[in-house]
């Protein structure tokens, strides 16, 4: 019964929005998996409140999930959406601004009753479903609550439980609209509710109900087809940043033969790395949920001393607490990987929102002259690469390494043509071995790295500590010139790392142009899309994305000279730009967004256009 006409689209953005309890994150994730398996390229953006479950029906309680999928290369979750699912007034109110003119709204009309209007602070006489304010959109009004209750009337479940299945109806409907199979979601439901067959059945029933609703009713006069994207050949999966980061660490552990020890304390949005790694005990991964962040990082340092690769994960406030210990690790010259999944600051700030405002903290947040390498991941899948790199640098150079990610890529998803284990490079580690000579714990190799001598090795007994050490012997030294020498040596050790990282490349655009836009971290997708568009318009613009923030790649200074203007886009009030201005005395311009939200492509395009004049 194919009543609806079929249209082919290049890409679509859907935003699911509802109450925290409405299961929008799950709906989004399920649709994401289906789109990924279908072969679309995609990017997602979950956007949820800081409360576990803020009061139902209120603006504070709205939880959103946006997916952008298409048959072309997708770099961002989309500035605006084509379809908005709104489970209640609050969800509509909070998200309508993002909907394209002419876009489709699927609303649960039950969520627009007097109570919901009141909770969302909408006067009774301004019900958006009735006051004409949605005239510029295509509104599909469904009483999803009612349908759900009817469908499950004789399931024997209570109303509260029944209502919780509403999202499955929505999912089914959207599957139908975009011509997707519901099979994988059925599999998922069956496995999720393995021990609650009644609930599994109810969910499946509604999923099908939603699908059939689309097919049967004439609510929708069109059905859409978004063809698979043309992507490089290979095997793909869908991946989120925190997952990728955890895999990257495990991969590096396998490739270096160093067991992982994670010392950490839960904090949003970093906790998922702990959750992931705690599952991989059969890789020899030890996870230690410590009493606080300080204990987390210190335990990691203890483990590194013992020959593991010590890792610690956190977000801004937790990272602040770790700084004293990171200073210790710097002087001990032990490997340590510090993952900061940044969120909105300062202080507790906006815990569930994204930001890039901890770069300066990573670079300078310790007492004394205490330089450490800092690297940053650009996309969800890039978290894998950079986590691998962080371990490699830390272990081969005997140094603590900061890996910066943020809430946006940590929770965002994209298709990933993942590598094979055999194609990943080995990370060669040589533990110190006893020799005839007296062991010198602060002797150095050509990388200026010192030997890693692990307890249990006969003959290499030695003591290390946080007081200034004598060059070579590692004994305590209060000598004035030794101190200056060691401070400079630790700096040189970081600087020399520039020999062991890739040169900076231009990601997009010409080697010489009018404007160079520089980004780092999660702004990659938005900048890429914006620059792509401008290049198509024939604009003289280029994009460089810095993954290695300290030391900077050796050629950056040279590269900057090839552009008349330099724009530095950051989700903070201007941090990388300070470094570039200081280092290269270049009059770079800042594009800054500090809204807990990623850049839109438009914002970047507009700024670039303004500069291009």
């Amino acid at each position, binding site marked *: 019964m194919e009543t609806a006409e079929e249209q082919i689209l290049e890409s679509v953005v859907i935003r699911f929005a509802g109450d925290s309890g409405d299961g929008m994150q799950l709906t989004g994730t399920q649709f994401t998996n289906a789109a990924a*398996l279908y072969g679309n390229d995609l990017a997602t953006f979950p956007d949820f409140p800081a409360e576990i479950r803020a009061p139902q029906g209120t603006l504070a309680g709205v939880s959103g999930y946006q997916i952008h999928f298409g048959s072309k290369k997708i770099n961002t979750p989309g500035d605006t959406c084509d379809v908005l699912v709104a489970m209640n007034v609050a969800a509509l109110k909070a998200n309508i601004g993002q909907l394209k003119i002419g876009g489709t709204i699927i609303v649960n009309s039950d969520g627009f009753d007097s109570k919901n209007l009141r909770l969302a602070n909408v006067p009774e006489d301004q019900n958006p479903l009735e006051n004409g304010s949605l005239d510029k959109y295509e509104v599909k009004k469904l009483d999803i609550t009612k349908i759900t209750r009817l469908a499950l009337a004789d399931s024997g479940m209570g109303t509260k439980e029944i209502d919780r299945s509403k999202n499955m109806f929505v999912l089914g409907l959207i599957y139908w609209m975009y011509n997707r199979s519901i099979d994988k979601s059925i599999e998922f439901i069956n496995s999720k509710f393995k021990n609650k067959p009644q609930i599994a059945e109810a969910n499946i029933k509604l999923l099908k109900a939603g699908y059939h609703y689309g097919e049967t009713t004439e609510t929708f006069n069109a059905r859409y087809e978004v063809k698979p994207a043309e992507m490089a050949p290979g095997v793909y999966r869908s991946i989120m940043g925190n997952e990728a980061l955890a895999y990257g660490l495990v991969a590096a552990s396998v490739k270096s033969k160093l067991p992982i020890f994670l010392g950490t304390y839960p904090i949003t949005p970093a906790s998922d790395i702990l959750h992931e790694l705690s599952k991989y005990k*059969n890789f020899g991964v030890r996870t230690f949920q410590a009493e606080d962040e300080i204990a987390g990082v210190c335990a990691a340092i203890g483990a590194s001393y*013992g020959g593991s690769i010590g890792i610690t994960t956190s977000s801004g406030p937790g990272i602040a607490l770790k700084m004293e210990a990171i200073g*210790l690790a710097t002087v001990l010259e032990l490997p340590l990987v510090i993952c900061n999944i940044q969120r909105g600051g300062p202080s507790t700030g906006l815990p569930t929102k994204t930001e890039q405002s901890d770069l300066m903290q990573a670079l300078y947040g310790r007492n004394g002259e205490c330089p450490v390498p800092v690297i940053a991941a650009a996309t969800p899948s890039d978290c894998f690469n950079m986590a691998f790199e962080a371990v490699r640098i830390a272990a081969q150079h005997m140094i603590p390494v900061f890996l910066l990610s943020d809430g946006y890529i940590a929770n965002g998803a994209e298709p990933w043509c993942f590598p094979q284990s055999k194609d990943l490079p080995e990370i060669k580690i040589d533990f110190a071995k006893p020799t005839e000579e007296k062991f010198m714990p602060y002797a150095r190799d050509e990388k200026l790295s010192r030997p890693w001598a692990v307890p249990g090795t006969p003959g290499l007994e030695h003591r290390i500590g946080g007081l200034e050490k004598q060059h070579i012997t590692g004994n305590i030294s209060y000598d004035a010139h030794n101190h200056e020498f060691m401070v400079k040596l630790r700096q040189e050790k970081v600087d020399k790392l520039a020999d062991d990282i890739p040169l900076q490349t231009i990601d997009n655009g010409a080697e010489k142009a009018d404007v160079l836009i520089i980004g780092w971290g999660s702004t990659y997708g938005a900048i890429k899309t914006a620059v792509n568009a401008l290049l198509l318009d024939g604009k003289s613009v280029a994009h460089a994305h810095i993954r290695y923030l300290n030391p900077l790649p050796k050629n950056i200074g040279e590269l900057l000279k090839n552009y008349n203007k330099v724009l530095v886009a950051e989700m903070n009030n201007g941090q990388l730009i300070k470094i570039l201005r200081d280092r290269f005395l270049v009059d770079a311009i800042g594009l800054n967004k500090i809204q807990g939200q990623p850049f839109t492509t438009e914002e970047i395009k507009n700024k670039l256009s303004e500069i291009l004049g």
Partner: protein
Amino acid sequence: MTTLIDQTAPKLTPKDFVSDQDVRWCPGCGDYSILKQVQTVLPDLGRPKEEFVFVSGIGCSSRFPYYMDTYGMHSIHGRAAAIATGLKSSRPELSVWMISGDGDSLSIGGNHFIHLLRRNLDINVLLFNNQIYGLTKGQYSPTSEKGKVTKSTPMGSIDHPFNPIALSMGADATFVARTMDRDPKHIQQMIRRGYEHTGTSLIEIYQNCNVFNDGAFEVFTEKTSKKNETLFIENGQPLIFGDNSDKGIILDGFKPKVVDLTQGYSASDCWVHDEQDQVKANILARFFDNPSIEGHLPRPFGVFYAIERPTYNDLLNQQIAYAIEKNGEGNLDKLIAGKETWTIN
């Protein structure tokens, strides 16, 4: 440098544990004796010296690792427990020792300290209690007595001090003992007991800081008063003390009382120490009066409490072993691929 893997290697001596660094404590400091006793006991434990690791925080006492020719780390203030936890969890076969002061472990490091005790990692904790901050030149510490006049408390301290033994009991420690710098044999005995205990062994050591808090423990260490002011407790033995072992402790309901063994009471009336009795250990922990108070109880030395409980390091490593047994060693390709993949040709 001799390699000690060889089981037939010559037996170690205390000298083997002396590092090449000059000991830099003040002359007369109680730390010297403790160092010496540790260096005396270690060779007897039958372990190659490369298996010993000493982790300390910051403080005079925390300089200890530098003087031991073993592996060691002088870390940051208060964090030795956390560092030792990471080391022991990942390298359970090592013999891990933690050296700390009353400031280091009960002030800034208090949280790691109580968490270490509850988790019960198999670590030997030597808590050098001198009731003062030595390294920073004499401020009061969380174990200083109320009213103490120090650089930071010109009118006397107003903090009620911690009772480290009671605090450790409250944190569910599995091994709790007390000893003193001036009793070499007893320190050695306690160190041995602590080493033999599987789990965290907390050994509080009264240590004289002759520069900033001289004589803090004089009544317990001086010949003239020691016998009447201290109570050496031993498992299965009655609680007897005094110049001629002429005093005993009995329990009057729950109230401990000193009785005169020359006047109607005999050893068999006395409370017999049971290291596994938590209630009684708690009562003993509260033998904590100021010795200048009339009718005060003697201060106990020895093992207050010792029970077995699985260690965090064992449990963690058992989970690792079980996971490998159950799921096989991790396959990286499988992990990365996850549950669902698709192929583009």
